[in-house]
């Protein structure tokens, strides 16, 4: 019963959802003038997802309180995490998310931290390229040459070396062709495969053949 009920619910809601996307009478089904059933059901999903955030909060708190209690390695970071987590939430609750304090923390801390993490990509791309880009065979040579062309075709220095007004449109011309033709072909082939794989996965779940979402291993 514990497994059957969620499986039946998954199937029923999948059918309802498909109906709400693909059948016009269901899309236009109104329970009051101008108010569709679909919109109301979608709103309930929104509320459920917001309430689910509490689960994350509980898990994060439990895990870090345990770390502090047992004085595990780096437990001080857990203290700091809890201060920041609840501190920011409390500031938002007391002064509101459009208060100067709340926005200052966002502007002065969150945005720079976010940018810092993203900018690390530039450094990691360099180290990964240095480590992994090796001419071992024909395929890796092609990969390397294409990477050089695309990199130079994207920046001004490439234009300086081989202008887009020169033969073949320079690095930029070849880069545009690579992105438009071979790259697009590969992306479409992969997308079709991914779509079919995802579709089959969805059918398996809705037909109750794949039950891992219930927490099992089979």
């Amino acid at each position: 019963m514990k497994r059957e009920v969620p499986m039946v619910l998954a199937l029923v809601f999948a059918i309802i959802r498909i109906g709400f996307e693909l059948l016009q009478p269901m899309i236009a089904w109104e329970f009051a003038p101008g108010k569709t059933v679909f919109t109301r059901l979608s709103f309930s999903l929104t509320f459920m997802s917001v309430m689910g955030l509490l689960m994350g909060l509980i898990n994060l708190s439990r895990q870090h309180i345990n770390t502090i209690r047992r004085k595990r390695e780096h437990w001080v970071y857990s203290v700091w995490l809890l201060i920041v987590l609840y501190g920011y939430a409390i500031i938002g609750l007391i002064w509101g998310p459009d208060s100067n304090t709340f926005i200052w923390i966002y502007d002065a801390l969150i945005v720079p931290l976010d940018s810092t993490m993203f900018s690390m990509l530039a450094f990691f791309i360099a180290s990964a390229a240095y480590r992994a880009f090796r001419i071992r065979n024909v395929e890796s040579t092609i990969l390397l040459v294409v990477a050089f062309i695309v990199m130079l075709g994207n920046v001004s220095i490439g234009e300086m070396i081989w202008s887009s007004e020169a033969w073949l449109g320079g690095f930029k011309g070849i880069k545009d062709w690579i992105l438009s033709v071979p790259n697009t072909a590969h992306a479409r082939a992969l997308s079709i495969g991914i779509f079919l794989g995802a579709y089959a996965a969805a059918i398996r779940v809705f037909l109750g053949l794949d039950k891992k979402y219930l927490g099992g291993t089979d």
Partner: protein
Amino acid sequence: MAMKTLMLLAAEAEAPLTKWGIFPNVDSAVFGMFFGIAMIILVYVMIQRARAGLPIPEIRRIPGMEAFEEAVGRATEMGRPVHITNYAEDVGDYDTWAFWSYLAHVAKLCATYDTRVINTNTDYLTQAVNEEIIKQAYLEAGRPDAFNPDDVRYCSPWQFGYTMAVAGIIAREKPAANFLIGYFYAESLILAEAGALVGAIQIAASSATSQLPFFIAACDYTMIGEEFYAGAATLSKEPVIYGSVVAQDIGRVAFTIIIIIGAIMNTFGNDAMIRLIMF
């Protein structure tokens, strides 16, 4: 004159609100419905054939699938943990469903070898299911006491908050095996490089095409695109799941035929195939 009036009326008439009276007037609504039904029938038939032991096409081995045991074995030998994560998707997403197959497999291997498995999450609901899957794996391996719920960690719903947390966990815990499985964005390379810096053997499987180059550069094994889903299905080794993978392969052949015929027809100025698909 009458013809001209009719043409003017046709031009002024609003587009029909529905197709066949019940489908919404959007591209591919009818085709999509029939395609969906055909796929469900195909999956059902293939599963029935697999269950009945009737012959169905073979599935090729996916490179990288054998490496899972090797990676967990290495972690066991080194006495270091295993780390597994999927970043982007929530419980209602098919990438997460595929990820759970890998998680169950890795958790079972870790439970059998008595190796610690750390799972990091960005979605609170996914984290709850992951915890159940890992707990069940330890239970099945006869080691329920070895399961540590604190190793199934919810980090942050914010992309780079999660990335910072996971990169930190990898640097501190030094996992010997790092599994990056699911849908990833800009964090892919940061996590893969964090794993490379601690010398972890790294296996990635992703349908995120824009991140595949990073995984290929930074990981030891990478399963690309559809291999990610097919690998998930083959892990369970059930005939029913196998049947669904065969069905999706047949669907792919059908798509290829449609594309070739459509391209030829369109080249010669006939757009019937395009109109059929867009209907």
